[in-house]
């Protein structure tokens, strides 16, 4: 109306005419944000927003959460069960009964013919906890294969293993509130702004109030590294050396918390003896961080009244993943930084319900961190489920990564894949492809029909996704949040819980084992099993969880009875002296000798291949690859390559290049940037038939997690750019 205009133009602003907001915790990462999905008059989900009074996200969402409502009708969703005799035939639509009978019959046939363990079940971190628990009951209690694992082996196994080795149990001891109390934060191989944007925001909020030092250890100059007070650009795969050198400084200079160590730990002397080999003078040659910086960081960390460490895949996805976690725990224990406000070692988890599967899926044992190796645990669960305790194996079976080797050797003949896509996610996909081809029977249960692993399936079971289902999920800070079925699954697709229960009916012919139909009832059953244990959630119900916008475990029946309302946040583990889960209540300080077994660059393959995540994508892109407002920021695979290296190779910005490893090759677009070292490229892992064609994925001896981030490649310039563009495009169905 300024500039002499005589008429006000009408103002039109998009109005989605939302009639109702419905609650669900976010189904992407493990941050555990609370979302409300807005529905219009026609009952169509048209908007998403962060729940204002949820302690985790306080009204915020990342770009994936903001468009999560678009998931419900995204492309590629499975709508009817499919069946075929051979994987190379065309799919035929079928009825649920036929499909489920087929899966049941094939499991039985293979087990009868080759033995109980010749059929493997591979689960996920994507489902709801009640579904995990039900699948565990079905697999451990009725199907009876010991080769049952989840894709969490690819992301969280090292954290689980490290926690167990140090503290005697899994379970991250800290919480997001620790950011508000810490005096020093070290991030090991964790890029919060990109991978856990909401946790980053919580950290940033805390940091703006109290400008605590942030130290980032990462070979790449990530946004977090750039914003850090100190960035330690470490040589890939040498975290343990840096940890040992820091411990050397702490012990050498007497900076450790002696009283805490005495009261809470065992093993100091053995640790002292090992770290004596890691004088920073020698360690600097291995880890690439100079002596002064090592001393400086060690002192800063040890002297901080409360010091916190977080880590993600930079530590976990390594041949020393479990050791790296133990190293972090060692540093925390030496300085008394466990179980206190601002002092913790907090694993920043990956998948939305990786924690739920760790607690309840029975993949690595029995429900609620119980162990197959423990006769009492077997007895208790067998009794509770009404099965024969002898039916349980006495030792956990293979990890997901070992199951694939066992398919290769013919030990495993059949597989049931649930909400996971090993054709994209396992290292060295050429090897995985051969293994998949060899299977006598493969069932894929997934919300997406175009999940690449389905090409080798004999039966496809269309599942519901995220808030089409009912249950709970546990986040990084052990907070259980509610997911509600605010939409029905499309067409004939069904919630995973329904599928498990129908499958259970087929194995549970005598009706001995009880499989409740409602998620709320299952949750109560789990509550009973959790009583008196570390992750005790017996005080919670679905309703209470929703009202509180998530409750951190433990929250016990006793607390509930005593009228103690669940705390908004800030619940920690191991706050009492000697309250660790080993029998004497003490944590273990474990010596960590460094063995360099990584594939490292050499003359033939002179570049480090570092893989990682992009903020706009989720895992194999089956979700985000179809949502334009996420996908557009990186629609095709690319590498970050140092401009000096690119120049030597004659590669220009935007050229397609060929990456070659000892396994296979991949065609990607080159984006030169000084964000990476001259002998390193960064390649996002999200794209099918790309990063994992190249990766070797040596396994961690404890966690069996693959080393996705330390591989060697060479880079070739491509003369025929048009052909490369065509090839790259052909490999991109979405």
């Amino acid at each position, binding site marked *: *109306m*300024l*500039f*002499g*205009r005589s008429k*006000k*133009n*009408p*103002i*039109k*602003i*998009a109005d*989605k005419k939302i009639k109702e907001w419905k609650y669900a915790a976010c189904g992407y990462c493990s941050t555990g944000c609370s979302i409300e999905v807005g529905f219009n008059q026609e009952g169509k989900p048209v*908007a998403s927003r962060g729940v*204002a*009074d949820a302690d985790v996200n306080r*009204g*915020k*969402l*990342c*770009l994936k959460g*903001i*468009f999560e409502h678009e998931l419900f009708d995204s492309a590629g969703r499975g709508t009817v069960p499919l069946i075929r005799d051979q994987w190379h035939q065309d799919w035929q639509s079928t009825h649920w009964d036929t499909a489920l009978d087929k899966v049941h019959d094939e499991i039985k046939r293979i087990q009868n013919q080759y033995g109980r363990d010749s059929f493997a079940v591979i689960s996920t971190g994507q489902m709801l906890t009640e579904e995990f628990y039900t699948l565990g009951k079905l697999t451990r209690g009725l199907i009876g294969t010991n080769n049952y694992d989840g894709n969490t082996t690819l992301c969280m196994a090292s954290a689980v293993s490290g926690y167990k080795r140090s503290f005697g149990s899994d379970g991250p001891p800290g919480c997001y509130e620790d950011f508000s109390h810490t005096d020093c934060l070290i991030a090991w191989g964790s890029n919060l*702004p*990109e991978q856990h*944007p909401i946790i*980053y*925001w919580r950290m*940033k*909020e805390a940091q*703006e109030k109290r400008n605590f030092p942030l130290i980032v250890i990462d070979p790449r*100059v990530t*946004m977090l590294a*750039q*914003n850090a007070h100190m*960035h330690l*650009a470490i040589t890939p795969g040498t975290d343990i050396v840096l940890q040992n050198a820091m411990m050397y400084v702490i012990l050498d200079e007497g900076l450790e918390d002696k009283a805490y160590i005495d009261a809470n730990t065992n093993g100091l002397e053995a640790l002292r003896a090992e770290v004596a080999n890691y004088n920073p003078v020698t360690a600097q040659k291995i880890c690439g961080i100079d002596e002064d910086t090592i001393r400086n960081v060690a002192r800063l960390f040890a002297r901080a009244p409360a010091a916190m460490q977080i880590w993600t895949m930079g530590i976990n996805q390594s041949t020393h993943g479990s050791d790296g976690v133990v190293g972090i725990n060692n540093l925390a224990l030496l300085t008394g930084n466990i179980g206190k406000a601002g002092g913790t070692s907090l694993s920043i988890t990956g998948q939305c319900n990786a924690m739920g599967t760790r607690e309840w899926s029975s993949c690595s044992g029995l429900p609620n961190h119980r162990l197959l190796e423990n006769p009492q645990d077997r007895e208790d669960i067998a009794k509770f489920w009404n099965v024969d305790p002898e039916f349980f194996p006495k030792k956990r079976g293979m990890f997901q990564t070992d199951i694939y080797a066992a398919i290769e050797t013919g030990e495993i003949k059949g597989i049931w894949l649930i909400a996971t896509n090993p054709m994209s996610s396992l290292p060295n996909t050429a090897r995985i492809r051969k293994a998949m081809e060899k299977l006598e029977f493969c069932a894929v249960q997934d919300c997406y029909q175009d999940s690449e692993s389905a090409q080798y399936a004999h039966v496809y079971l269309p599942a519901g996704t995220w808030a089409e289902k009912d249950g709970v999920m546990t986040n990084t800070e052990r907070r259980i949040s509610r997911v509600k079925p605010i939409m029905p699954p499309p067409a004939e697709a069904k919630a995973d819980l329904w599928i498990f229960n129908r499958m259970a009916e087929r194995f549970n012919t005598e009706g001995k084992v009880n499989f409740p139909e409602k998620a709320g009832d299952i949750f109560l059953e789990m509550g009973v099993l959790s009583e008196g244990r570390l992750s005790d959630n017996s005080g919670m119900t679905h309703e209470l969880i929703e009202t509180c916008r998530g409750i951190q475990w433990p929250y016990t029946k006793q607390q509930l009875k005593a009228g103690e309302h669940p705390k908004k946040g800030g619940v920690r583990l191991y706050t009492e002296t000697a309250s660790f889960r080993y029998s004497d209540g003490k944590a273990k300080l474990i010596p960590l000798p460094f063995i360099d077994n990584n594939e490292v660059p050499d003359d033939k393959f002179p570049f480090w291949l570092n893989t990682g995540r992009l*903020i*706009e994508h989720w895992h194999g892109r089956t979700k985000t*690859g*179809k*949502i*334009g*407002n996420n*996908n*557009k920021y*990186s*629609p095709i695979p690319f590498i970050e390559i*140092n401009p000096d290296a690119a120049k030597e190779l004659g590669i*220009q*910005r*935007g050229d397609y290049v060929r990456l070659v490893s000892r396994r296979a090759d991949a065609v990607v677009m080159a*984006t030169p*940037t*000084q*964000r*990476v*070292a001259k002998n390193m490229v960064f390649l996002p892992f999200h794209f099918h038939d790309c990063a994992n064609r190249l990766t070797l994925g040596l396994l961690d001896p404890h966690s069996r997690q693959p080393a996705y981030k330390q591989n060697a490649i060479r880079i070739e310039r491509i003369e025929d750019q048009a052909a490369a563009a*065509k090839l790259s*495009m052909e490999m991109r169905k979405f």
Partner: protein
Amino acid sequence: MIKVRDNEPDYALLRKEESKEVNQYGKLIETVPEHNRLRKQDFVINDEAQPEENPDRYKQHGFYFNADNCIGCHACEAACSEKNDNPAHLAFRSVGFVEGGTYPNYQRLNISMACNHCDDPVCLKGCPTRAYTKFAEYGAVLQDPDICFGCGYCTWVCPYNAPQLDPVKGEVSKCNMCVDRLEVGLKPACVSACLGNALDFGVIESVPENRTQVKTEIPGFPRTDITHPNIRFQQTRTTQRDMVRVDNTAVKYHKDDSTGKFQPELDPKHGYQRDWNWKKLLGSHENAHVAFTLSLQTVMGAFFMLTLGAWVELSPLTSFIQSSAYLPLLLVMLVLTSVGLFKLNMHLGKPHRFYRGFYNLKMSPVSREIAGVTAFFTGLMGYSFFALFDNGFATFIQTLFATLGLAGLALGGYFMYKLYRIPARPYWDHWQTGASFVATGLTLGGLLIALLAMSFGAMNTGLATLLAAVVGLGVIVEGAGLLAHARDLQPAESEGAASFYEQTTTYGKSYWLRNGLLVVALCLALSIAFLNFNSTFGFLLLSLLLLVTGIIGRTLFYVLVIPTTMPGAFFWKNKGFVDHAREVGLADMQQLGVAYERHHKFKLGALLKTIYGTSLKEKIAQAKRVLTG
């Protein structure tokens, strides 16, 4: 209306604080004084009058961007697109970045940018349809896609890439400042969504909590003197001396130690190899403009020579007018003009809204150009029609039309040039643009007459000499312009240097071919004029040469312009990737966020509906506003 939740977090609420009176550019922050009539008009959003609840409603508001904190997480963009229901290929807010340094001393600076609701909104002034309004409420610059006819001129003039031309819908839309949220005391959606604590919003010049600076510039942010944008920055961290764009634009920002500010500079991203690039050159979406300007200028040149030649009684021209070539020439001129106008109109996103081109006569050079060209075309038609009659009265009327045509030519021609003098487009913002337009008139206009004269046996030595001299003069004007343009652009501290670099590399061979042909053409024209060179063959060859140089030159003109604008990212908002995706077919995937350019139908039905659906009163009022604004 937006509902504020009972538990709305503090970060989403507008600050309540004292504001300054005058902004850094010396302008009052209060948009209109207290008892101004503008305060009494309803503020209507989606047909709903808003209750005046925001006490700061009549103060200029703006975004605040803390570049120290932005992590490039795209939450602002996502929140914006979610709220405004935008498809993937369209965004009112975007994050781009610049980077500098050497590993590990590397720095990436993310810049999140939407509309800056400028003090001096060039979009509003440029828009021919009056689709833009700068509201007294919040000083928001809002645009109505239902008025817009999709010419995209606002996207040319804006230095910040704020208006978005949707190739699918054929209309522009842009950031609306979330005025609906402001009305209820909420910050815009993007600000509320920010995860880095980088974006903020409030009355302009107010400093958010914990922030210390209110700068008007940061590296990578386009110059502010064009529009006085309402955005303020914090950027305390020392940046590298060179901050480089990561999109394919050959630009970096170099620190000037004396001012501490960053100036755009050439960054020769793809070396110095020379190419033809015919496909890109001739396949440009701006080809309608090529056709329009070339044909109109040709006809204008010929018309100018005919009318003025007759008036000053230049004998070669007066005898030409008496010849049998005269009427066919007029016919060709009419056809050429029609084709040019048709191409231009059909290139609009909403061609059936053509009549709105006049709406902003008060401010827009585009409106004035259209008015001028319309007058010229009317003059040409009348002039041609009365050329059919041979009597005093007809000659008198014809002279009137000739005068109208010349007036239209002057007005339309001037604004055709003026509309390209866009500060945000340094490649165009040079007198060479005008020189080239005049040169086209002289060369192609002269040659048009020559060709018709030869076809109808009306060519004679006198005419040949005259026309060849005019053509030669045209080539000299063109050449002089080009020399000056090259001299000024090559060392420029602007995107112009990058344009020049592309001109001599990506299109280097085409560029030098054109230059070479111009020299040949000049020699040829001078030979015809002064050495009595065989004129038939000479004019044919000259026509071919100058048509080729004209087309190459004009396509270069459109394809080479590199706007002063926001840096993009590597895929998103990178013209290089957009072109690649369209070329290889990646753009077929909708979720890629790249839409193809397309042509839009002339919807006669929509036009008739407007004609019948608008009351006479409104029509009159609309016509009045063409002049009053």
